[in-house]
């Protein structure tokens, strides 16, 4: 007699603990290498810093055991590893620049790391169910747009390196766009999950593609105009690309219509081309991208390709295996600890180290995508997918800018680059993804009831208009392909 025994799904928390130890050990080993290379001895505060860092992530780990036991066990260790390596590289650049402890960037970055992890803990603890966020769709919209536009206001807005994406509050600088990313992802997800039905209605067919109806073009035009505004007034190609890309991607996921992608890409190309013809700063960036080694472009005072070229030199000198931590000269590149930290890593850890890093990012994003596929509600799918995709897009825009895939922009590498706003927002994203993944991986028996005001959520369930209803949307059962569910047949 065959008996089907469902085994209690593994939470993966123990795996997470082991991976966390590996990630913290990796950072401490890197820290030790820097000390050995620069001073010839192990750094003095190594155990203190390593222990403190370990304690921070351990807190988040324990909170997960308590509040989100089924959360994806790989997200936290991967983010920890990248954050740790980033701290070491920033510390290494502090040493190269001879910054004292009080002016060192690494010490500030440690504080921001602590704040970031605390923010992730708060997200996991306070947000018991991610679906609650869909109630704040329009609050998120207002918050997101306000944050996005803040740098344009006089007094608090700051122009750094030609891009106006900073605000200054006293001695602190902040990139509100980083936080706006989360708010807008919530807004896009909440808005699209309700509007997807009308937006997926087809209009005329052209070149084998069913295009949407003209009157449904409103939202995408608004998003397009807003991102063009960012490009023109804040002079930041990266932020602009990030928001518009995020919107188009989510629009496509929500409606399942390729035509939206075609419309979006056409709008972006048109907008970017117009901006290129009209604005000098865009042309300068494109010139530096296409002809970085041209002496005229390299030596000009405005829009010089010097930073880009020095970054390329650094990466080239790293070669396959790198110079070794503390053995190269990444400090030659301006902003080596923020915009060009990818080049610093390429130089000292080589192509091998950079591959490992990019693959870590890729894995974080793909785990996020897996979460989006696994979670049962439409809002959660869009939010997890949007947050993951925004991180992928950001990595692409930054690393692609440094390696000349696309023109250089002012964004920073998540978890890695020096910058408080970026760390804070990315740890919050990890917190959100952990929360959503907990819901995605939780066995049906333990699923919490829908939050009280779930009226608007029920409408987000697959409707009759959905021409291709999906199994895991309709049936609240674990995805059969979910690798964590094991069926044993004795």
């Amino acid at each position, binding site marked *: 007699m065959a008996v089907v025994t469902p085994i209690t799904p593994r939470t993966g928390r123990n795996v997470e603990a082991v991976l966390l130890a590996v990630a913290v050990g990796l950072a401490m080993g890197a820290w030790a290498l820097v000390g050995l290379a620069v001073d010839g001895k192990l750094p003095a505060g190594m155990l203190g810093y390593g222990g403190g860092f370990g304690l921070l992530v351990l807190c988040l780990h324990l909170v997960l055991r308590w509040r989100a036991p089924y959360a994806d066990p790989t997200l936290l260790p991967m983010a920890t590893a990248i954050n740790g390596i980033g701290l070491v590289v920033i510390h290494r650049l502090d040493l190269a620049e001879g910054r004292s402890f009080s002016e060192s960037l690494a010490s500030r970055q440690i504080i921001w790391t602590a704040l970031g992890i605390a923010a992730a803990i708060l997200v996991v603890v306070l947000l018991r169910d991610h679906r609650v966020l869909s109630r704040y769709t329009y609050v998120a919209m207002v918050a997101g747009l306000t944050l996005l536009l803040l740098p344009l206001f006089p007094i608090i807005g700051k122009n750094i390196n030609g891009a106006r994406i900073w605000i200054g509050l006293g001695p602190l600088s902040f990139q509100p766009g980083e936080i706006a990313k989360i708010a807008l992802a919530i807004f896009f997800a909440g808005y699209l999950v309700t509007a997807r039905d009308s937006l997926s209605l087809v209009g005329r067919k052209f070149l084998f593609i069913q295009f949407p109806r003209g009157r449904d073009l409103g939202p995408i035009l608004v998003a397009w105009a807003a991102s063009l505004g960012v490009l023109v007034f804040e002079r930041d190609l990266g932020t602009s690309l990030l928001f518009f890309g995020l919107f188009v991607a989510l629009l496509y996921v929500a409606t399942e219509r390729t035509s939206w992608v075609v419309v979006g890409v056409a709008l972006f190309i048109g907008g970017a081309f117009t901006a290129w013809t009209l604005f000098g700063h865009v042309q300068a960036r494109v010139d530096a991208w296409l002809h970085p*080694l041209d002496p005229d472009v390299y030596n000009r005072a405005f829009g010089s390709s010097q930073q880009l070229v020095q970054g390329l030199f650094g*990466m080239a000198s790293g070669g396959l295996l790198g110079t070794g931590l503390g053995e190269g000269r990444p400090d030659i590149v301006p902003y080596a600890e923020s915009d060009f930290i990818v080049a610093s890593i390429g130089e000292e850890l080589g192509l091998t180290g950079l591959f490992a890093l990019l693959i870590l*990012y890729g894995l974080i994003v793909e785990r996020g995508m897996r979460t989006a596929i696994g979670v049962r509600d439409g809002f959660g799918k869009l939010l997890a997918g949007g947050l993951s*995709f925004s991180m992928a897009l950001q990595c692409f825009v930054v*690393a692609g800018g440094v390696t*000349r895939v696309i023109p250089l922009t002012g964004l920073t590498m998540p978890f890695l680059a020096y910058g408080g706003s970026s760390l804070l927002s990315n740890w919050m994203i990890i917190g959100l993804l952990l929360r959503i993944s907990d819901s995605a991986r939780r066995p049906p028996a333990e699923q919490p009831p829908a939050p009280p005001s779930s009226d608007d959520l029920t409408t987000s369930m697959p409707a009759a208009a959905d021409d291709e209803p999906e199994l895991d949307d309709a049936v609240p059962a674990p995805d059969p392909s979910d690798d964590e569910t094991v069926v044993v047949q004795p």
Partner: protein
Amino acid sequence: MNGPLRRLAGVVAILFASLLASTTWVQFVDADSLDKQPTNSRTLYKEFGRERGPLLVGNSTPIAQSVPVDDQYKFLRKYPGNQMYSHITGFYSVVYGPTGMERAAGDLLSGTSDQLFYRRIGDLLTGEEPKGASIELTIDPKVQSAAWKALGDRRGAVVALDPKTGAVLAMVSKPAFDPNQLAGHNRAEVAAARKKLLADPTRPLEDRAIASRLYPPGSVFKLVTAAAALSSGRYNPQSVLPGPAELDLPQTSVTLPNYSGGACGANDKITLTDALRISCNTAFGYLGLQLGPATIAEQAQKFGFGQKLRIPLDVTPSTFPADANAPSTAQAAIGQYNDRVTPMQVAMVAAGIANGGDVMRPNLIKAVRSAQDLKIIDEPQPERLSEAVSPEVANQLKGMMLEVVRNGTGTRAQIPGVEVAGKSGTAQQGAAGPPHAWFTAFAPANDPQVAVAVVIEDGGGLGDAASGGRLAAPVAQKVMRAVLDK
């Protein structure tokens, strides 16, 4: 929504794959060409982190060495000889890169030269820090110091060669500079020191011995003209030449006067030997007209004119105007007009005559030794550059030059008990200033150990009274004495 999400995940994979491709391109495929970009300063920085080999003179006395320091460059380059060797060593600057031997032998000193390839593999296997090779120079510190002191505060240069091997025994250019100031690690101080040196009207950074602006050779060039005359077979040391007070130059109303203003001999006649001994301009102007510019140019070329030499410092080629017209040829034959020479070239003329007509290739490197086991990696062998004149002509020229020092314009170069052969020169600059004083010589005449050339700029403080025999001959004498230990 899962279908689009899966496809979006595919898009993400493509984005990351494109990053893997682009980083591979930058760090692997295109890396070599990026490394070689002129704006890439990293290659230099890489070098600073290595222990560079020393430059040694005499019995392994360092004149450039790396000492460990506690800063980002790890090693500081020190020049214990201060100013005395500044133009030979050059300096190794973190701001301006290397100059002098630091540049010319940079690959060996830094340990990146292909000659050190197998040793580098050894370092890789043993994990030892790569070290640069040490280079022993041919410079004799005793001779260098004698030349340095003899020149005093006067602007000019001294070059002393071993005529048999081409080894450079001394090479001094004044004014000099302190390379330590330029090899420091404080960028602002280095920049300030360099700015000051560049602004100095006496141009201390220029190496007057082998590079810099060249000098008119004046009468020391008469050695070349005499060599051309003797080699032509039409003249011998006893040939009688016209030596009037003034030589009428064809096609012009200009005349070429003698330095003394008077005629060179009785009845305006003089032998070739005596013409060289008293440096008779009219007789040599006449010879120049008889031989023609092409013949003299060819002879000059055989002594090394027009050749770009690396010793391994770059030596600026000296020039003789092969296309001069008749009146200019007479001027050029006595070392005026457009003749331009380095002191190194003048020393090579004397050395060629001393060595039986064979000019040896000048060279500064005695031996290259590996840092690990001090084994000799490279030891340049003496090499003949050219046969300037036949042994017979060389012998005739030597006899004439002996007369110059015995009782001609070069008596101040006499060394008791040693036969010295020499030739003076006083290169007129006209309105540009007092003449440059020249002297070139070799000794002992029967077994030459040293050939020397001395130039003292702008009269050396004596104004128009300056002459090669008076100013430069004593300097040459002191340098030769240092070599001969007399």
